[in-house]
C-alpha cells in the first residue's frame, strides 16, 4: 500500500491507563479487557486519510512501568506525535503527567505533537479527574486534549486522526523538516508535491475533515 506520508507515533503514560487497548482499538477495532503488561515496546500500524491523502501511522506502544522508562525514552526522538494517556478513574495517573511531559519534552524533537488523552471515559461513575481539569492542564501546556474510551471506542479514531491532522498542518506550514527522518515523518512514493504556499487546498481539507471531531 502506498502512502503520501508516514508518521511515527508513540503512546506514553502510566501503567494500566489503557495504552495498549487504545492501540488495539485503533488498529484492530476490538477491545481486550484482559491484557498482559506491555514488555518494552510493541508495534502497530494503520492507514488513514487526511485531506484526501493516504497517511500511514506507525505506532509504538510503550510500557508504562518505571522499569522500562529508560528503554522507552529511546523512542521519543524519532516520533512525530505522542499520545500522553492518563486514566480518569485514577487521580495519580493524572498527577504524573508533569513528569511524563518533562521527559517527553526533554528527549523529543521540539515539534513533536503531543495529544493529552483521558482514557476510560466509559467509567464515569468512578471518575476521579474532572474533564475540566484535563482541559486546563492541556491549555496550560499547549496540548490537544480529548477524553476517550478504548472499551466503547469513543473518540479513539479521533484521537489518532486529530494528532495526524495537527502534524499534517505543521508540515503544510513548513514547521517540520520532512527530509529529516529523525522527525518521525517519511514521504511516500504516492506523494505528489503540492505547493504548501497554496493555503486553499490545505485549509479546505482541514475544515471538511474536522467535521468528525
Amino acid at each position: 500500500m502506498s502512502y503520501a506520508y508516514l508518521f511515527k507515533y508513540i503512546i506514553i503514560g502510566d501503567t494500566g491507563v489503557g495504552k495498549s487497548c487504545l492501540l488495539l482499538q485503533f488498529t484492530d477495532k476490538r477491545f481486550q479487557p484482559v491484557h498482559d503488561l506491555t514488555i518494552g515496546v510493541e508495534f502497530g500500524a494503520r492507514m488513514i486519510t487526511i485531506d484526501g491523502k493516504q497517511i500511514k501511522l506507525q505506532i509504538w506502544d510503550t510500557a508504562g512501568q518505571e522499569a522500562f522508562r529508560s528503554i522507552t525514552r529511546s523512542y521519543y526522538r524519532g516520533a512525530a506525535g505522542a499520545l500522553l494517556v492518563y486514566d480518569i478513574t485514577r487521580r495519580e495517573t493524572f498527577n504524573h503527567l508533569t513528569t511524563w511531559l518533562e521527559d517527553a519534552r526533554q528527549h523529543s524533537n521540539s515539534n513533536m505533537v503531543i495529544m493529552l488523552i483521558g482514557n476510560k471515559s466509559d467509567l464515569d461513575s468512578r471518575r476521579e479527574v474532572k474533564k475540566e481539569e484535563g482541559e486546563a492542564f492541556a491549555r496550560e501546556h499547549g496540548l490537544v486534549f480529548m477524553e476517550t474510551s478504548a472499551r466503547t471506542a469513543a473518540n479513539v479514531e479521533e484521537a489518532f486522526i486529530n494528532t495526524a491532522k495537527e502534524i499534517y498542518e505543521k508540515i503544510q506550514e513548513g514547521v517540520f523538516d520532512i527530509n529529516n527522518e529523525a522527525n518521525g515523518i517519511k514521504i511516500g512514493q504516492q506523494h505528489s508535491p503540492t505547493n504548501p504556499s497554496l493555503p486553499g487546498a490545505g485549509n479546505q481539507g482541514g475544515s471538511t475533515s474536522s467535521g468528525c471531531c
Partner: protein
Amino acid sequence: MDFLKSGLKTVLGAPEPGQQPTGAETVERLVERVNSSTLLDDRRDACRALKALSRKYRIEVGAQGMSALIQVLQMDRADCEIISYALDTLCQIVTPEQFDEEADNPTVSVNVGEQFTEMFLKNSENVTLVLGYLEEYDFRVRWSAIKLLTTLLANKTKDIQEIVLVSPMAVSKLMDLLIDSREVIRNDALLLLIQLTKGNANIQKIVAFENAFDRLFDVVRDEGCSDGGIIVEDCLILMLNLLKNNSSNQQFFKEGSYIQRLAPMFTIAPETEENGWTPQKVSNMHCMLQVVRALVSPSNQLQIISSCQKTMRTCGLLEALCNMLMGSGVPADILTETINTVGEVIRGDLSNQEYLSTVMAPSNPPRPAIVVLLMSMVNEKQPLSLRCAVLYCFQCFQYRNEVGQASLVQTLLPSSSEVSSLTAGQLLCGGLFSTDSLANWLSAVALMHALIENPAQKEQLLRVLLATSVGSPPVSLLQQCTTLLQQSNYKLQSKVGILMLLSTWLSHCQVCVKAFLSTPSSVAYLIAQVSANEHDENEYLIQGLCSFLMGICIQFNDNSLQNNKREDLCQLIVKRIGLEMFTAKLGDVSKHEAYSRAAKQPQIRAKSASELLLDYEFCKLFKALESVITKTVNGYDVNGPNLTELTLSSEASDLVSQYKDIIREQDNKMNDMKQKIAALEVQNETIQRQLTDALTANSQLTDQNILLKAQLTAAAGAGAAAASASAEPEPANPTTSEPHVALNTQISFYQSENARLLEEIEALKISLHDKSRNSSSVVEEFEHLKKDQEDLLELLTDQEKKILKYKQILQNLGENVDTEDELDDEDFMERRETTSTSLTSTDDHPRSES
C-alpha cells in the same frame, strides 16, 4: 622501532647509559606523565607511547594506565589525536586475542582482555563516554570508538547491551553511523550493530525504530543487492537479527512494506544462470532466504505468519522463489534452502498452497513442480538435505489443505480415464515399495500427511488397490502395508514409516480400524511385536509403535467385528503381554531420542539418513492419544466388560459431561443455600437473645413499678395518718405545734415525694410501652425470617428431587452413578431434617414466651 625509541627518548628524556629501564618502569613513567603533565603535547606523546607499548606490556599498561586513559577521555575532548590514542590503547588492552608480542610472556593469561573489560565496565559512565565519541566526526576518533565498543561487546555482550539501553540516544548515534560516507566507518558500524542486537529484543526494536530497515535496504541496493559483496551479507545478517523471534519487528517489517523491497532481490538475472554463482552470492542468497523464513517461521505468531504469507504472494516473492526452484544452475544448498523457504511461505495458507500446485516445471513434457520435487525426494542419488527439504515442503503443502490432500489421494484411486503422466500418488507408492529404506520412510510420511485431520481421505485411501504382480489379484494399500511390515528384508526405518502411516490412518476412523483388523495376520503381527523381547533401542521403538497401533485399534473400535471387539483385544493384551508391559512399551516411544528431536520443530533436520525415524505431526498425534489409550486399556477389567467414560461413544460422553456439569451446578447451588440457612440460624439466635433480654428488662421494670406503687400507697397512707393525727391534737393541744410543724413539713415532703414517684411511674410506663412495642417488632421480624427459611427448605427439596431425576436419567443412560453422591445426598437429607426439627423447637420457644 628506531622511531619509537627516539619518540620515547623525547618523552622520557635520555636514559642513563647502561641502565635500560624495564617495561614496567617505562609504563609507570608514561602514565605519570599522562596524569600530571600540564602540556597537551606531552600528554599526547605519552599516550602515543602507551599505545605503542600496550601490545607488548599489556598488563602493565592496563593495570596502571586505565584510569589515566579514562581521564584523558574525560578531559581532552578537544584534541582528536590524543583521544584516538587513548581509545586505541584501551582497545588493545581489552582485546580477547593474544598479540604476537606477548606470546612469550607467561604472565599474560588467556582471559586478560576480559578481565580488563570488567575493570573498564565497573563504571558504566566509561561506556557512555565512548558512546559519546561516536558523535565526533573526526575519522580517527569515530573509528577508534567503534572498534573499542565492538571489542567490549565481544567480551561482555550483556553488560554493554544494558548500558546502551539506558544511555539516551545511544542507538540513534549508532544508527547515524550507517549513513557515514566513509565506508570503513559504515562497515564497522554494521559489525558493531550485529553484535549489539544479538539476543536483545529491546535493542532490536529500538534499532528498527531508528529506520534500520530503510538504511539497510539502501546499503544493500547501493552495494548491488544479492550480487554485492560481504557488506550485503552483513546487512542481511543484521536484518535477520532484528527479525528472528521478534514479533513486534516482524509486524513492523510487514507493515513497513519491506517485503516488497525484498521480493525483487530474488529475481535471478539470466547471466547468473550462465556464469554460475560466486561464493559471496551464495552466502547473500542464503541470508535472504533466512530473512524470509524468519518472517513465516512456524514458531511465529499465527496472524503475523498469515499476513506475511499473503503479502509474499501478492508482491511476487513466492513467484520469484518458485522460479528459483525450477531454474537451472542454482547451487544445491541454495536450492535446498529455497525448498524449505517455499514450504514455510505456503504452510497453512490455502491460496499459496494452490499457487504452488499450479507451478509447472519447464521439463519435457511439462510436469507439476510438486511431482518434480517428489521425484527428487524418492531418488536415492539426491543429497539427504534436499530430500528432507522436499518432504518438509510437501508437508507444508498438505498442512491444513483439504483440497491438496484430496487431490493427492485422488491420483491413487482407480479412475475411468487412463492417466499416462506420472502423478504424485504413484511416486509415493513407488517410494513405499522401493529398496531404498529412506525413500520408504519419506514416502510413508508424505502419504501420512495427506491424512492428517482429514477423515474423508482416510476412508478414500482404503479404496486404493495395487497391482503387485502380473496375474495375481490386486491387493489394497492397507493390506500391502501390513504385508510389508512382516517382510524381514524391509528395514527398520521403513517399518517405522509404515507404522506411523498406519497409526495416523487408523486414528479417529472406525472404518479404517475395522479394515485393518480384517486384514489377515495384522493383529497377530502386532501382538508378536509387542511381546517380543529384543533388546535394542530401535527395536524398542518398533515395539512401542506397535503397541500404539494396537491401542488405536482398541480405542477406535466400533465392536462390529467378531473376535476383534474391544474387549477381545484388551483380553489379548492382558493375557499375552500384560498391562504393565504394554504401558511401558508405549512409553518407550516418547523416551526415544528421535521423538524429542522430531517434536522440536516441523522442519525435518537430520545429519544422517539413519536419524530420520519419527515425524513432527506423528509426535503430536502420539502425545494426544498416549494417555487416552493407556486409560482405556487399563480401565478394562479382566472380570468382564467395564463401561468407562473413555469407552463411551463421543455423543454419550458429551451427554455425560453435560449432566455432570448440571449436577456440579446444582451442588454449588445447594452449598450456597446451606450457607444461607446457617447464616439465618445465627441471625435467628441473636434475635431471640435480644428478645429474652428485652423481656427480662420488661419484667424487671414491672417489678420496680409495683414496688414503687406499693411504696407510694404506703407513703400516702402514712401521710394521711400523719395529717389526721396532726389536725386533731392541734386545737386541743396547741403545745404540740412544734411536732405539728415537723409533721407538716414531713407531709409536704411526702407529697412532693409522691408527685415525683408518680412522674417516675409515668416515665416507666412510657418506657414499658416502648419496650413492648420493640419486642413485638422483633417477633414480627422473626416470623418473617422463619417464612424465608421455610421457602428455602422447599427449594432444597425441589433441587433434591431434580437431582434424583437426573440420577435416574443417568442410570437409564447406563452410567454407574457414584455411590458417593448418594451417600452425600443421604447425609445431607439427615442434616436437613435435624436442622428443621431444631428450627421448629426454637420456633415454639419465643411464641410461648410472648
